[in-house]
């Protein structure tokens, strides 16, 4: 069933998924994902709520079996991750769950058991960074402090692969900054064995992504539409301003303009987000306008774009007609 060959992914990829599919009852949540997370990089996984990010991560962590397909994490089938492999993985769950009855010191003792390499200094410095005492009960900590303890438990284990599921959820700006700083510092180094560290970060905060990620992956409706480096993404996707009346951007225009991610009417003009555009993108747009029954000589200008705008444009496609049409025959 697997398309994966063991020798393909062990060395280069931290996570390698092939045809990864997951249903919850009748609902298709993750749809035939094929992706590789290269080692030594920070990959940000973006998507709307319910896009399938957490489900994908849980399948990669062996917490959920795929309905179909396979995922290999650090070279092992994620359904049967060995203890040795789990020692190389740090996983920060969404919401920073920790048992409330434990004290921080007891939590450290629990977290370090079974870990081959435990960096007690790092744990201590991190909890000090978040102004936490080791005799405090976890249940009495603030959300930010709990995030700090969670992160300290994960990072002190010196993992080769760090998977973070929405780590900044509900944190105040100061805690968020502290979290990001810790992550940046961690991702820049290597493990004690000299292995490059890999981070898979699921988040909604695109500013953070810009700051710490090398690669970006965007999931929409269970499908992976973007998985590339940040630089490549901003190069291959652009935003254009089109001065044309409302009728100019017809349904036919949508079909004709290849790579149209989003067309949005704003302040008397159209804003287009186009991926994989031709070298002469203006001519491409003009042709589509002409076929669509609009003005061929409409004014077209390139807009200043931020990663935030581009990602939001992508995320907006989930409700679009073209995306729905494509997903109607998703099963077969």
């Amino acid at each position, binding site marked *: *069933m697997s398309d994966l060959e063991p020798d393909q992914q062990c060395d280069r990829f931290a996570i390698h998924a092939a*045809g990864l599919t*997951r*249903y*919850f*009852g*009748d609902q*298709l949540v993750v*749809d*035939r994902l094929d992706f590789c997370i290269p080692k030594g990089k920070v990959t940000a996984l973006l998507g709307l709520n319910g896009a399938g990010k957490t489900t994908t991560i*849980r399948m990669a*962590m*062996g*917490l*959920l*079996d795929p*309905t*179909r397909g396979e995922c290999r994490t650090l070279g092992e089938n994620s359904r049967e991750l060995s*203890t*040795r492999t*789990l*020692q190389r*993985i*740090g*996983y920060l*769950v*969404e*919401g*920073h*769950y*920790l048992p409330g*009855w434990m004290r921080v010191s007891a939590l450290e*003792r*629990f*977290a370090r*058991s*079974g*870990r081959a390499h435990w960096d007690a200094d790092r744990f201590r410095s991190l909890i000090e960074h978040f102004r936490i005492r080791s005799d405090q009960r976890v249940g009495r900590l603030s959300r930010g402090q709990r995030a700090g303890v969670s992160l300290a438990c994960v990072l002190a284990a010196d993992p080769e692969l760090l998977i973070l*599921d929405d780590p900044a959820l509900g944190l105040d700006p100061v805690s968020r900054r502290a979290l990001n700083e810790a992550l940046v510092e961690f991702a820049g180094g290597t493990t004690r064995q000299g292995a490059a560290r890999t981070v898979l970060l699921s988040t909604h905060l695109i500013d953070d992504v810009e700051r710490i990620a090398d690669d970006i992956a965007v999931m929409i409706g269970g*499908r992976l*539409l*973007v*998985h*590339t480096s940040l630089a490549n*993404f901003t190069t*291959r*996707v652009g935003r254009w301003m089109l001065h044309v009346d409302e009728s100019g951007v017809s349904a036919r225009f949508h079909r004709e303009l*290849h*790579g*149209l*991610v989003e067309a949005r009417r704003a302040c008397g003009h159209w804003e287009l987000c186009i*991926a*994989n555009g031709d070298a002469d993108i203006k001519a491409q747009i003009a042709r589509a306008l002409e076929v669509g029954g609009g003005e061929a000589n409409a004014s077209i200008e390139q807009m200043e774009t931020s990663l935030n705008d581009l990602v939001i444009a*992508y995320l907006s*496609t989930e409700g679009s007609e*073209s995306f729905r049409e*494509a997903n109607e*025959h998703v*099963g*077969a």
Partner: protein
Amino acid sequence: MFIALLWKSFREILLTVPLAMVVLSVITYLQMPARSDQVQSTASSYASLLACLGGAYAMVLGLLQTWPLRRTDVRGWLFSHPAPRWHFYFADLFAAVAAYLLAILVPWGIAWIWLGQVAPATRPASPWDLMPGLLVYLAALSFHPASVWMMNRPSSWFGSRTFVLALPGLLTFLAFIGLETALPAWGWGLVIATVVLFVVLYPLIAGEAYTRLSNAPSRVYRRRSDVGDNNDRPGFARLAYCVAVLASTAIVCLAAWMLVVVPLDSSLFAPTQGLIDDVMFAGDGNPCFVRKAYVWNEDRGYRHYETQEAWLLNPELEMFHEVSQLEPVEANQIANLKQASYVTNMSWFGAQPPFREFVQDYFGTGPGGLSWHPTYDGVYHAYVPRQSVQVEEDLLQVVMDRNGFGSTEAPFHPYHAITNFSSALESHLPSPSLTGDVFFLADAEGLYQASLGERRVETLLSEKIDGFAVMIDPARENIIAFILAGDTLRLYAVESDEPGVALPKRMTEEEHKRGGERAPWPRLRFDEQIEIKLPPDWYAPLAGEPTKQGLTHWLLPRLDGGWLLIQQRAMSSIKRLDIDASNQIVARTSYYLPRAKPSPLVRDLLVTSLIPVVTASAALFELAGPQNHVELPRVTDRVLLLLCLGFVLAHSLLAWWFTEKACTARRLSIRSTTTWRCASVFLGLITPLLVLSFHHRIASVSCHACDRMIRVDEPRCPHCTAAWKPVEHLGIEVF
């Protein structure tokens, strides 16, 4: 890591331990005997309470450990720690076992020590009375893995999710019954094998669910595809599957037993409630089987039995083993029937349950002031009542066994079957005051006469005894004891062994009303009169069943000086054995009892049709099987049974058809479908329900190549073997 997990698991359930300990302490305290003249069935009631509480506590522990794991963040945090998933499960299991044992050991241990100190001196109890409770409590621990399994099953709460709790329930019940009941060796073997099997299997199956099924909420079991690649199916999943089917089979059988066998038993054969069977003589001296009903006589102010129906037990039509029809006695002749004899219920000395408890047995007040005498483990205990000696607590005054008073070295055997047949004798010799001082005992090895006043125990008869009864001939007023041992029936004439002292005579009703006193019992002598070798169909049921319930014997004198032995079995049949004066068996006849109250035919048919063919056959086999020594019933009953079988067959066909439909709806493989079809023969109409509950509906989509529906977990189309279509590109992908 395992130690850390164990510590965490135990710490999380630690708070439940004192709570459970308090509840169990209260229960234990309430079950302790408060006074020596209030014998409580400590072993039995304590065991039943601990079974319920233990099961509930085990379930609570299982739920506390697994319910939080339904949250994805809790699950993610825990299982991302570097340990095999089985370690998490075993940590939970061991922590639960520790908490479970800790909760009982303190109250149970204190009760054990306390009883060891006060019993039997001031309490009619033994520390061993607490042992069945502990064992049943341990059996109820199986609810823990069951609840873990239940929580990790990806099934509906309104479907089959809670189904897995049935088997621990049965297991606990089985352990309880096993400890309470005298079982033959094979029965004990079966109980132990079942308990051991599930003690090993259930945690493993629950572990499989904990480690594997919980990861797969959208389907229950992987299965081998008909074509192409095979999915790996976890080994224990198969086991879980088998156990689930086993559990459901057990439930079906139990339900079938309750719904079908019991109603059949009571409808095809005579109901017994409020009725008593007896044998009387007709005017011509022929024996009649009579059915009497209990009547309270307002005028006379006492109860009596009135003969309702009677049938002549005709002499044999042919020699040896001929089934005869019973001829009813005409209504106007019923009043002329004469009492044939008074026969005590037969005492059977068979297998014994593994745990003893004090059994209350009143002798009456004797000169020693002993008011009551419980027995324990074959030894009589006599307590001084509080009111007579003005002491704070009752005190054990004396113990008695076969060696006499003060001895515990030679207990009566077996312990529970010591029969004080004094009252049996006296119930047929009505007297206002029972003798009390002198009483008679029977055990499996002999007959004994004891005198409280003289503190003396004498052996009247020393021989092996399986069954023992006493008959008093109303005409001759002599007492006959008959003893069954193996295939031998021995009759003894009971006489006075003291010269010049006669046996007490039966009092007339007038004497009884006047409150006349009767002479005390002299020392008895048992003179053997007859020894008869019984035919195999007579003694086989005696040896075959440990309890021998429902087996009644009458011994009647024949006019020619011989004897007539009548055996009634399970309210269903009567056997008659004619023994002539030379102690030879001259005739054997079997009769069927008429149905006292015919039940509606339709109800029988409907009830019977609820169970599948195999169970129905087993039920009928049980009813009419050779071990019951019941020959084929009468013609009307045969027609009824045939009709029932017809309904059962129709039911099985329906079950087969619905199972087929259910398998198709779940898109099961050919092999699975075949298995379930076979199961429907055993399980009946419950099978399609089981299919629908065990196999979840997996989403299906149409194949892009052949357009037929395929399950989404198939690696490729099972019909055309086409692979899944690749993802359609939208043109906006950036890789």
